[in-house]
């Protein structure tokens, strides 16, 4: 690939910024949540601490959270673009970001237990590619910590224990259950990504891709937008609050998407992303030059 250095440098900047600089929509969400909690309450103290943390990470150019997570890259490239070269430039950028302390040594060999010094290994980072009929490259990055990854859940409807049938009321019950069982773990107030349908694997993929949506957007499918609204209200009523230590703000948002399914399967998949919602993106030229930020 030509301009390999340019690509590495742009991707490094994307990683650095994702690690240290919480997106504006999420910070606004935290501020709004803070106002809803009582003064001198634990919930308010936690949210104030989180906001202080956001500012410090930015000022000190240091990771928002020490768990710099799994790195998931979503690329949209022009038709015929050389994605292999993009993978190798990204790996170089990840290794450099690790060396400079923007990423923790966070990749473990699952068989030997050995820690990887560069965060570049089989399955790390993760890549998705899509070809688009335009002349620029869009790249989005999610850095998803392990604490919130561990509280993700997949339901298969009907679910008798929840009284959840194969309809949107059943989906609502699954999501409520996911919020209740995630509490105290996963670092609330987080955001839920939900996928209705798909299979065991694509359900999780689709639920995670919901995190690429902006916090204040609404589903373009009216009925799903209504379900998102209702569930967010109900999550407040559960009195779980930040970190599960009581209060209103168990969640900042709920994003629901859907995929087709086969007649025999009806999965509802819920992914949880913590308040340290590290998601950034950029439009780059085909030479890897920076054009603009997406978030």
């Amino acid at each position: 690939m030509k301009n390999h250095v340019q690509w590495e440098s742009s991707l490094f900047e994307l990683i650095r910024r994702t690690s240290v600089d919480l997106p504006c929509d999420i910070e606004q969400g935290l501020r709004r949540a803070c106002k809803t909690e009582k003064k001198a309450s634990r919930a308010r103290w936690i949210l104030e601490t989180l906001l202080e943390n956001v500012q410090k990470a930015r000022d000190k150019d240091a990771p928002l959270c020490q768990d710099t997570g799994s790195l998931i890259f979503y690329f949209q490239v022009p038709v015929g673009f050389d994605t292999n070269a993009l993978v190798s430039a990204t790996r170089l950028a990840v290794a450099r970001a690790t060396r400079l302390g923007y990423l923790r040594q966070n990749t473990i060999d699952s068989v030997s237990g050995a820690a990887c010094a560069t965060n570049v290994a089989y399955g790390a980072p993760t890549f998705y590619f899509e070809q688009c009929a335009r002349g620029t490259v869009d790249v989005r990055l999610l850095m998803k910590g392990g604490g919130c990854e561990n509280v993700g859940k997949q339901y298969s409807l009907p679910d008798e224990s929840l009284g959840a049938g194969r309809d949107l009321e059943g989906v609502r019950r699954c999501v409520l259950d996911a919020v209740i069982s995630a509490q105290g773990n996963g670092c609330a107030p987080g955001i839920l990504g939900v996928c209705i349908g798909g299979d065991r694997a694509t359900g999780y993929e689709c639920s995670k891709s919901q995190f690429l949506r902006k916090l204040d957007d609404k589903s373009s499918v009216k009925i799903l937008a209504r379900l998102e609204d209702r569930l967010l209200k109900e999550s407040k009523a559960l009195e779980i609050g930040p970190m599960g230590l009581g209060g209103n703000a168990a969640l900042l948002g709920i994003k629901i998407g859907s995929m087709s399914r086969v007649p025999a399967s009806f999965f509802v998949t819920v992914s949880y992303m913590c308040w340290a919602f590290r998601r950034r993106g950029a439009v780059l030229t085909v030479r890897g030059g920076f054009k603009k930020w997406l978030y």
Partner: protein
Amino acid sequence: MALLKPRRLEYPFTQEQVGSLRAGQFVLVSGLVYTARDRIHKFFFEGGKSPVDLKNAALYHCGPVVIRKDSDWVVRAAGPTTSIREEPYLPRIIKDHGVRVIIGKGSMGKVTEGACKAGGCVYLHAVGGAAQVLAEKVVSVKGLYFGEEFGLAEAMWVLELKDFPAIVAIDSKGHNLLRRIKSASLGIGRKLMKSSDPFIP
């Protein structure tokens, strides 16, 4: 903030200091703490020897981002990791080593409640993800053990803290703040599911 008037805890953490704490209280921790997470808990549980005396000490569930600058270690980010993964190991570790304080994050269950009660120990909940605010409470890095064997994130770092903020989540009587909140939310959740107002398109 009246509610959040802090209690101060200082290493070594004596039975008297820890015994008077109650679930829900706000504390500021100062002095030495030892980081320990998944690998070290399993190692101690299986009878591995601690390189330091953990009597009246605190284990901090934390895997910091630390980089080498000249001859010093510099903490770039450090906050709590999820503690529930260590629950199966804790009773034995608290008993064998005389650990007095556990610092971490997230809900813990009956096993930890029992271990805290039996060992006169408390579980303190720090703010998850607040790696910069909490890294500033680390005054200095006093030592490193198991760095080679377990990797830098899983190693035992000896950290000196100053006014590290946390909430008492389980006290030495076994009262569990998060469990109380969870059982209340379960009740509310059941009502919401029974609601006569199902979601209909």
